[in-house]
């Protein structure tokens, strides 16, 4: 019998998107409380400084990702970045101007920005708030965590001034 921890670890390793507790439970045939227990064990093990990846929560799911502090060093091994270049540009505009009206982002980035914003919301990086005919876009805590920033101001400062990288 394959240990649940091995199953969960393999599933997270293979998936290229965050996996929810429900999906893990359903597809691996394990009870949610079992999965939660092994996720805790995995997270604890990966927190060790000699480990290069971490278990993180993104958009309501769990994902294995390279630790932020070593991401730049291993970039050459992954030619595809986490977001497409165009989506990343739209995200950069949102970060620079947040909270910003969706219409303003679309005005600056073109009609394809709608699809980018949709993807960013599904990744949990951006939150949309209904404001009449348009939406007001905010960056989320998950985005700040992803880039290792404590506040939006810190991330924005790093964006505008090279050298002000989050610690």
């Amino acid at each position, binding site marked *: 019998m394959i240990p649940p921890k091995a199953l969960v670890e*393999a599933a997270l*390793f*293979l*998936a*290229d998107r965050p996996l929810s507790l429900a999906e893990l439970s359903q597809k691996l045939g394990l009870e949610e409380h079992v999965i939660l227990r092994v996720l805790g064990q995995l997270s604890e093990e990966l927190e060790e400084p000699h480990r290069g990846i971490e278990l993180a929560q993104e958009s309501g799911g769990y994902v294995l*990702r*390279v630790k*932020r502090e070593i*991401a*730049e060093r*291993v*970039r050459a*091994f*992954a*030619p*595809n*970045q*986490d*977001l497409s*270049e165009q989506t*990343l*540009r*739209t*995200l*950069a*505009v949102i*970060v*620079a101007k947040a909270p910003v009206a969706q219409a303003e982002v*679309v*005005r*600056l*980035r*073109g009609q394809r920005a709608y699809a980018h914003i949709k993807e960013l919301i599904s990744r949990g990086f951006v939150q949309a708030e209904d404001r009449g005919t348009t939406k007001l876009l905010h960056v989320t805590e998950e985005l700040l965590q*992803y*880039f*290792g*920033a404590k506040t939006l101001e810190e*991330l924005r400062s*790093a*964006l*505008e001034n*090279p050298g002000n*990288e*989050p610690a």
Partner: protein
Amino acid sequence: MLEVLEPERFTRADWEELFREATRGLDPWALDITVLIGRFREFLTKTPVEMRVPGRMVLASSVLLRMKSERMEGKATLAEAVEAMLAEEEASAEPVVYMAPELRLPLRRRPRARLTVTDLRRAFVAALSSSRPKGEKPKPQIEMKAEPFRVRALNLLRKLLSLVNGHQVIPFSQILERGDPKERVARFMELLHLAGTGKIQLFQQEFLGEIYIEVPHDPAQSAG
């Protein structure tokens, strides 16, 4: 009572001679034990030494003797003979169909690099340099005259009327000032507009030949 031969005593005996006599003419792989025992008994009766050798010892010795003789003759050793026999058996056996195990490729993840603030900054700079507010139209590649097309077409008609001078048909080449492709296209578009509105008529006498512009009889009416 059977006397047990001690190894020391056995080695002292002329056992080689005994074996030679006992196995002379016999096939070492098919020893006739009856003949062997008969010869052994005969040997014992002839020799004064009271010595008896167990049959098993004789068999073992005969095998060893054969191995030795084969080695001396350069023939295959027993081990090689056994191997050859096994190979022969294997060759004659029914061919076994090899069932390959099911091909299962290892699952590998497609690596996607985690984004850094450096990536975000680069994307921000790129977004700023490429962003064009929706309301702003790109600068036209070809400078257009400020005059609307319709006005330019009417001006062309007036020019045509001034050129008619009794003749109602004017070649296209006569209305050109510079004659460059840009002007040709602009004039031709204006002529098409005038022709479309019934102000003039265009025709050619030959394929890809000169375009002729026919101006109606009543120029004032046409220009109106």
